[in-house]
């Protein structure tokens, strides 16, 4: 089809729309190409054509060398507009294929096309507020239900340990735990360094630089180690859980699983939750050691505190609970991160786009929950006096 070939010829030189009179009739001759390459320029002019008083209109297409659907539509639209103004319109000179195309495009009274759902901006704000509120409420309900489901599955699996998917469990322990060692190590050492630096500068002013060690020890063991690691793992593995399960939802793999009689909570969720609960405490332990190590190195370099002094001071600074207060939180955070990751993955529906959206949501939510829980733990421990 020649629709796009001859488009360069007419540009600028020949007048594409010629209006003339033939007796009583108003005649529009279109010359050259009437297709997607020229229609952008002609559309506005064709919309404004006005035959004035003439009651009969002829559209002459004999000099149109290429006509496509866009052109055919514009001819139809013009015809329709002039006819609804009470004029008689005839199309002449169209080649059979062109006439067929114009016929094909057809006529509809109302060509107003809605390309996307629209609403009033003010109304939209109200509507969105409402929708968001209800979405949050139903989210909270659903996540609680999911929590219950996982808890039941967990208890059942512990009663029947042979039903746990060990291969999957080990795989996820490697993915979420072993492979996270380098990043966790690096970040913890750096945090130790930062703490030592800041502490040293402030405490030196009082001649109390030795207490930098207390600062490092307590903050790393109680808070920073577990918090940093959890946040890193939420970003790294929680998001991966959502993306993995979400992709499986999109491909209907989860549906297939259910029809085969596999329980997604058991096959997909539980191994991930357990893997996270096993590995996060170990990672936190690693982070603690590395944080103390980084701090120690800086103490040696900046404050000339020897390793022996450092260890002695550390020994005096931390109580019997300091370490456990940090570590105890790890499985709880792990549970929350894995739960949220899997839950959001299960919420994926239909499109691949929702995988991306929910992955982001999962990371934000799990980090938020981790920090919230950390605050609650602080209150709890303060009341317990440890």
């Amino acid at each position, binding site marked *: 089809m020649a629709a796009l070939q001859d488009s360069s010829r007419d540009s600028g030189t020949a007048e594409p729309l010629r209006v003339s009179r033939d007796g009583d009739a108003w005649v529009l001759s279109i010359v050259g190409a009437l297709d997607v390459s020229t229609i952008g320029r002609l559309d506005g002019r064709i919309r404004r054509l006005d035959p004035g008083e003439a009651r009969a209109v002829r559209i002459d297409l004999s000099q149109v060398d290429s006509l496509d659907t866009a052109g055919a539509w514009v001819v139809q639209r013009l015809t329709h507009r002039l006819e609804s103004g009470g004029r008689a319109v005839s199309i002449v000179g169209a080649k059979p294929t062109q006439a067929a195309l114009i016929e094909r495009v057809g006529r509809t009274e109302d060509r107003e096309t809605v*390309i996307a759902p629209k609403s009033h901006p003010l109304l939209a704000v109200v509507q969105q507020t409402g929708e968001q509120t209800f979405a949050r409420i139903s989210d909270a309900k659903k996540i609680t239900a999911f929590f219950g489901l996982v808890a039941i599955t967990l208890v059942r699996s512990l009663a029947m340990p042979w039903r746990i998917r060990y291969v999957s469990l080990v795989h996820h322990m490697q993915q979420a735990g072993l492979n996270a060692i380098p990043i966790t190590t690096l970040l913890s050492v750096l945090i130790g360094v930062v703490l030592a630096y800041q502490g040293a500068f402030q405490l030196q002013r009082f001649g109390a630089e030795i207490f930098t060690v207390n600062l490092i020890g307590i903050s790393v063991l109680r808070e920073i180690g577990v918090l940093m690691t959890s946040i890193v793992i939420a970003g790294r593995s929680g998001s991966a859980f959502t993306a993995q399960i979400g992709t499986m939802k999109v491909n209907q793999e989860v549906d297939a699983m259910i029809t085969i009689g596999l329980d997604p909570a058991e096959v997909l969720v539980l191994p991930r939750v357990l893997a996270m609960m096993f590995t996060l405490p170990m990672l936190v332990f690693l982070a603690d050691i590395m944080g103390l190590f980084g701090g120690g190195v800086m103490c040696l370099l900046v404050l000339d505190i020897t390793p022996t002094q450092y260890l002695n001071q550390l020994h005096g600074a931390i109580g019997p609970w300091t370490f456990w207060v940090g570590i105890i939180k790890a499985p709880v955070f792990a549970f929350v991160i894995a739960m949220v990751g899997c839950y959001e993955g299960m919420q994926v529906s239909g499109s691949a786009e929702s995988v991306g959206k929910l992955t982001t949501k999962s990371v934000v939510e799990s980090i938020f929950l981790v920090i919230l829980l950390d605050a609650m733990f602080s209150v709890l421990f303060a009341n317990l006096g440890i």
Partner: protein
Amino acid sequence: MAEDFVIRCKDVRTQFGTTVIHDNLDLDVQRGEVLGVVGASGAGKSVLLRTIIGLNKHVAGNIEILGQDMDRLSVKARKHVQERWGVLFQDGALFSSLTVAQNVQVPMKEHTNMPQALMNELAGVKIEMVGLSRDACAKYPSELSGGMRKRAGLARSLALDPEILFLDEPTAGLDPISAAAFDELIRSLQRSLQLTVFMVTHDLDSLAAICDRIACLVDKRVKIGTMQELMQDQHPWLQAYFHGPRGRSARKAG
């Protein structure tokens, strides 16, 4: 430019790693014909389609589309050729974040300078042309059924009135009535828009109903001919294909 052949493949060879999919494959597609491509599952029909439209690299031979060797073209010239074909992927491949009408407008926005109002009208025209109702315009792909997604994908591939239409299993997964209607739709669009259609299909009914010629992928190459000619062919796969129970009933119907 004599463009009697809109697609010419010569000695094309494609492979993944060491697995050769096509070897010394020659294929000419004439202007204005509907070519059905058949072959066993895994014979490389989809790969052939992807190779022709440039999504897959061939390792030897050359492919000319509309008289142009795609490998030798500049980016701009290649874009120009791309305007002249439309592709319908197996599941529609609609952009999931856009509505159907917006999907249809994507090629228009990329390749033309039409005003938005006209694009809106045209999107509606195309969507009606492929037999979807107006209500479908503002819907998102995830809200459509498989058959509707195919129609919407067809509307998008027709957005710029292409000269060549590539279809990958357009009727797979449709009920027989919808499939027949889809065949009819493609045939009538082909007539009124004078398209050349390159259609991968498993559907013997489609082949009988709308294809002018059939290209059959066997032994890493194509055998091409009308249905009658291929039915006389002695190749065992072709024999089994056309003379098996399904082949017989389709022939009776066609």
